[in-house]
């Protein structure tokens, strides 16, 4: 049995789905944040796998970009979550519905 690109794609799809479902069902901002990271890394996995299968470096280069952006996003996101937690003593996103129309 060979582990081909299909396996990686399946794994990535599973990881992405877990991330997306977690994103939709959890209320804790921190956990939702981790779910986003999970989705991003699932995508990264597809990039690397596809790059390897096609024999180009493009996939790995894209992963670098994603990692850089994700790092920056984590900085900003965590700062916001900490600030919100300090102000409200909660990290539940359901409490944060000021923009309700």
């Amino acid at each position, binding site marked *: 049995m060979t582990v081909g690109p299909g396996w990686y794609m399946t794994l990535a799809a599973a990881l992405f789905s877990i991330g*997306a479902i977690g*994103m*939709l*069902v959890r*209320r804790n901002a921190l956990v*939702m944040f981790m779910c986003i990271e999970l989705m991003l890394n699932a995508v990264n996995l597809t990039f690397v796998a596809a790059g390897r299968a096609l024999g180009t470096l493009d996939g790995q280069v894209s992963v670098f970009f994603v990692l850089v952006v994700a790092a920056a996003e984590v900085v900003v996101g965590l700062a916001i979550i900490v600030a919100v937690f300090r102000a409200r003593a909660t990290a539940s*996103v*359901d409490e*944060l*519905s*000021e*923009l*309700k*129309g």
Partner: protein
Amino acid sequence: MIDLLWLVIALPLFGAVFLHFFGRRLGEPAAGWVATLLIGGSFVVAAGAAVPFFRGTGENVRVLLWEWMPAIGAGFELQWDPLAALMVLIVTGVGSLIHLYSIGYMSGDERFSRFFVYLNLFAASMLTLVLAGNYAMLFLGWELVGLCSYLLISFWFTRPSAAAAGKKAFVVNRIGDFGFMVGLMLIFTSFGTLSYAGIFERAPEVLGTGVATAIGLLLLVGAIGKSAQIPLYVWLPDAMEGPTPVSALIHAATMVTAGVYVVARSAPIYQLAPFAAGTVATIGALTALWAASIALAQNDIKKVLAYSTISQLGYMFLGVGTAAYVAGVFHLMTHAFFKALLFLGAGSVIHGMADEQDMRKMGGLARHMPITAVTMAVATLAIAGIPPFSGFWSKDEILGVAFEAGGWFVVLWIIGLVTALLTAFYMTRQFVMVFLGAPRWDEGVHPHESPRTMTIPLLVLALLAFGGGFVNTPWRTALEHFLEPAFEGVAIAQPSKELSTFFLLAAVSVLAGVLGIVAAYLAYRRPAEVWQRFQESLGAPWRWWEEAYRVDDLYGALIVAPGKTLAERTAFSFDLGIVDGAVNGVGWVVRRVGAALRPLQTGFVRNYGVVFVAGVVVVVAWLLVVGGGV
């Protein structure tokens, strides 16, 4: 002196600016003296520059002060020819006397110095008008005198009637200005320039009869507005709300003659358009008769003079319309003398009677105001056309030309003759009602002669009103020679040189004048009760007559009321309903759509996530099922 010509306009203009800032500090009467000296200075400069014309050696000169709008041939350009010179001398000469008179008349007024600011500004504007070397600059002066007229009529603006009169004068004049402006556009499209030099020399080659007639009629519309002819004369009687010196300066001697001046100045154009010229003459004659008939029934001392002015302006139009440009301008000059005198005399009476203007409450003033009475008598005889007073010579020249012209103009001559009779009648009526007979004053009125600043102008003007006619008699046509260079290439109609014709025509018109004087004297010399009872016995028609045939009401019903209705409809139906409605409607739609869509924003991240994921699923499903390339 030609190099200093710009000073003629600059001196009064400087006066206006200077008095605007420092007039209040100068106070009374210094501000008035400054203004008087400046306009007097203008007169001296103009007289000096006109000397060559008097010697008969003068040449027409154009002085370009600076470029203004070269594309339409309009610079700040002064045209110095005998016609301009004569107009400038009248404006500055009569103007100086009226400035001097105003020092006495306006004494004690709160806004004494402000009055002289306006007077000086008016003089500068009028001088711009007559000195202009192109139609654009003429129009500039034309509009400025209109503005000054508005400011001066409504000088006592706290009186609602004065404010309304100023507004009316301005609005009615705008109607005329509209025609005038279209005329200027037509001139520009025909000639490619507005400069007199480029127009008058080339007029015969460029203009066909049709275009010349159109230009002539359009300029006439402007002249009708400014010179208060039928049908736009209604503003002038109301303009009597202004201080009396204003009536004398603007609404008798200078501004209202601007229309006559424009027709005379545009003589080369009217020469090519006999129909337009005939229209000028006809409107003039009809106005003369119409206004004179209204003047017969007026009781306000200034209203009589206002209608008389309209009537006399009609004579001038009759003159310039029959191509008798010299006669028309001649009458303009003599009229400036005797009408300014009449207004200033009336002002002196009003001043002495403590602001009483109703002639029914005067009478017997000759004993108390001898100088005013004598000078007014001179003016009355002059306007009535009794030789050798000035009005006789100029009016007879106009009538003589009309008679010679033959055809339709003979009808106009008869109208002019009847007008002469009426003129003599209403002027004598006024003189008798004011100065003769038994006093009918209100209690507490003590008539007194006016101060010297007021009587000296009266005396000077009386001299001019008496002798001003001798500059152009059938024996000695000095004015004609003087004006000739200004009308190069224009055929000027002249009265018959045969003395027998002259004497015959003169005899007829003098007879008309004497008849009018005698009739009025006999009718109004009797005790006041007699003619008052007679007037009252006429009942409603007399009141209709007294109210100037209620032309104002007619215009009100025909033009003003529909205009108001239209404005109201536009403002409250169209603007509020449709224009504002459309704008509000857009806002309303946006708000309703927003309100409908607002619940979509739940504020829960989860909901947004679901939509997001659902969207991704749909897109991916689409790609899988339909394929990528689309």
